[in-house]
């Protein structure tokens, strides 16, 4: 808001709308405060660029109109030659390029065919976008300033931000594997702004899920997670909502299940129609009964509103795999229906404190 007031002042200053007294005052500030001065300069420059841009656009428009008028008159020749003459002309002109291109195309197609056969399993779809937010310095400062002084430790400038949620009050959090893979040190932050250190105890790249354990002594176990984790598949068209940290604050989004399989027919995931952004990765997807039915993983870069979420039953599989791996941790998944029948606002309110921001670098 301060920035808005300042920019308004700058604008009035530049337009000469200030009273003489105000003006001298502002000039004083400008002289003593290089950042304000910088802002005035930047603002002038931006407006100048904006003006120039509009001018050139209008001018281009005129050019095109004059051009089409003159083309109608015949002063400017219509494009290209027609018929056989044109083909022969083009062939002569590009004969060399075409032969080179054809041989290169031949080599490439053989090579790619080979590569495709070799790597089909490993190549990921380039349209799929992981939803981990990259934090810039400004926001980093924001995070630190929000943090209450009593909690420890202070995270050293995190680079990535995503979401996770508790599956056991003892401090087990589910998030995405691609989130954990990017981070060397992991911190989780609850909606009160308290930070805890966490470690990844299991990741599964196939379903893109990971389990974190909060290993911070400051963390107090919570009992009675109000939700349950659904074992069965959800139905097409089921209304869902999600919570996550695409910004430094928890954000709510709602939508519906739009397909029973994920990216390229992946049966371990759903396709959802819901608005999510980088930072939503690992966020819980709940149905209206307050059951967790999935975990946001990615979205389609090119198509609008196509979001993928790992199915919740994968969490059960994850725990089985964890047990088989000989790990001694016991995780008891919540089975409460504390959100059922509540209004959406109340559901979100109850849910909020169990959804964590996962940050790290």
């Amino acid at each position, binding site marked *: 808001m301060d920035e808005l007031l300042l920019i308004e002042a700058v604008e009035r200053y530049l337009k000469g709308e200030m009273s003489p007294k105000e003006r001298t005052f502002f000039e004083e500030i400008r002289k003593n405060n290089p950042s304000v001065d910088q802002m005035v300069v930047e603002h002038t420059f*931006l407006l100048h660029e904006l003006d120039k841009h509009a001018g050139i656009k209008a*001018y281009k428009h005129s050019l095109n109109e*004059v051009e089409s008028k003159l083309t109608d008159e015949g002063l*400017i020749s219509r494009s290209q*030659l027609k018929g056989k003459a044109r083909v022969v002309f083009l062939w*002569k002109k590009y004969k060399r390029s075409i032969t080179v291109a054809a041989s290169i195309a031949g080599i490439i197609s053989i090579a790619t065919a080979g590569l495709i056969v070799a790597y089909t399993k490993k190549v990921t779809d380039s349209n799929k976008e992981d939803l981990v937010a990259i934090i810039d310095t400004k926001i980093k400062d924001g995070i630190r300033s929000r943090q209450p002084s009593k909690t420890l430790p202070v995270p050293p400038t995190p680079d990535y931000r995503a979401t996770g949620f508790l599956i056991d009050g003892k401090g087990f959090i589910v998030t995405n594997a691609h989130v954990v893979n990017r981070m060397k040190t992991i911190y989780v932050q609850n909606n009160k702004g308290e930070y805890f250190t966490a470690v990844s105890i299991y990741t599964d790249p196939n379903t893109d899920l990971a389990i974190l354990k909060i290993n911070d002594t400051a963390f107090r176990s919570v009992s009675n997670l109000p939700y349950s984790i659904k074992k069965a598949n959800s139905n097409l068209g089921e209304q869902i909502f999600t919570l996550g940290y695409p910004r430094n604050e928890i954000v709510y989004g709602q939508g519906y299940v739009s397909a029973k399989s994920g990216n390229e027919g992946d049966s371990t995931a759903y396709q959802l129609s819901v608005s999510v952004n980088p930072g939503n990765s690992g966020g819980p997807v709940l149905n209206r009964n307050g059951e967790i039915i999935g975990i946001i993983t990615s979205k389609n870069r090119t198509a609008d509103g196509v979001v993928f979420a790992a199915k919740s039953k994968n969490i059960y599989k994850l725990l089985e795999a964890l047990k088989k791996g000989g790990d001694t941790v016991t995780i008891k998944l919540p089975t409460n229906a504390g959100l059922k029948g509540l209004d959406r606002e109340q559901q979100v309110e109850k849910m909020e404190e169990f959804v964590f921001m996962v940050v790290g670098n």
Partner: protein
Amino acid sequence: MIFIPGSGKGNPSFLRFFFLSFGLQISNKRINIYQVNTFEQEKQLLEGLALNDRAVIEAIYRDNYPMVQAFILNNNGNTDEARDIFQETMIVLFEKAVSGSFELNCQLKTYIYSVCRRLWLKRLQQLQRYHNPVENGEETVSVEEELEVHEKHNTDFSIMENALARIGEPCKSLLDAYYIQKKSMQDIASDFGYTNADNAKTQKYKCLLRLKKLFFAQYKNGQ
């Protein structure tokens, strides 16, 4: 212009002759016009150009386009490319005219021809279709500096275009209405359906801040 099968680049004597006589014809005609078209009049043309005057644009096209097209067709190009190059030259001219510091120290025709020639030869080099230019016999002046400035303008333009595309609607229209069309905040509020001018104003500043962020992020990267 008709290309006879089998002529292509070949049959140069015929084509060369054709274009030379064509060029000559034009320059003869041009000399007559330029006897009337004094320095003052060219200056007026540029002033009109800076104001985006369509009649002026048309006049410049009429006077200069055939010459440029002949040059480009003669040098391995087609009519589409000729149009493209001429448009770009017109933009160079516009930028010069708007900057106000434009002093024409040669005939407008010579300047346009020089810019087109340079732009086209550069384009040919990029397309790797370069060969020794076939000249029209027009005189040229050095325009290297101008084109460097123009390149810079071009990048600025695309950065702004990009930034504007990314702030999305209604931000784009809002900024356009206020800063370009210079509408009053009152009108904008009613046009865009804001409850009052203050709301619209706050929204506008927010949009401007976003634009600023996007623009400078790219602008500083490009430096």
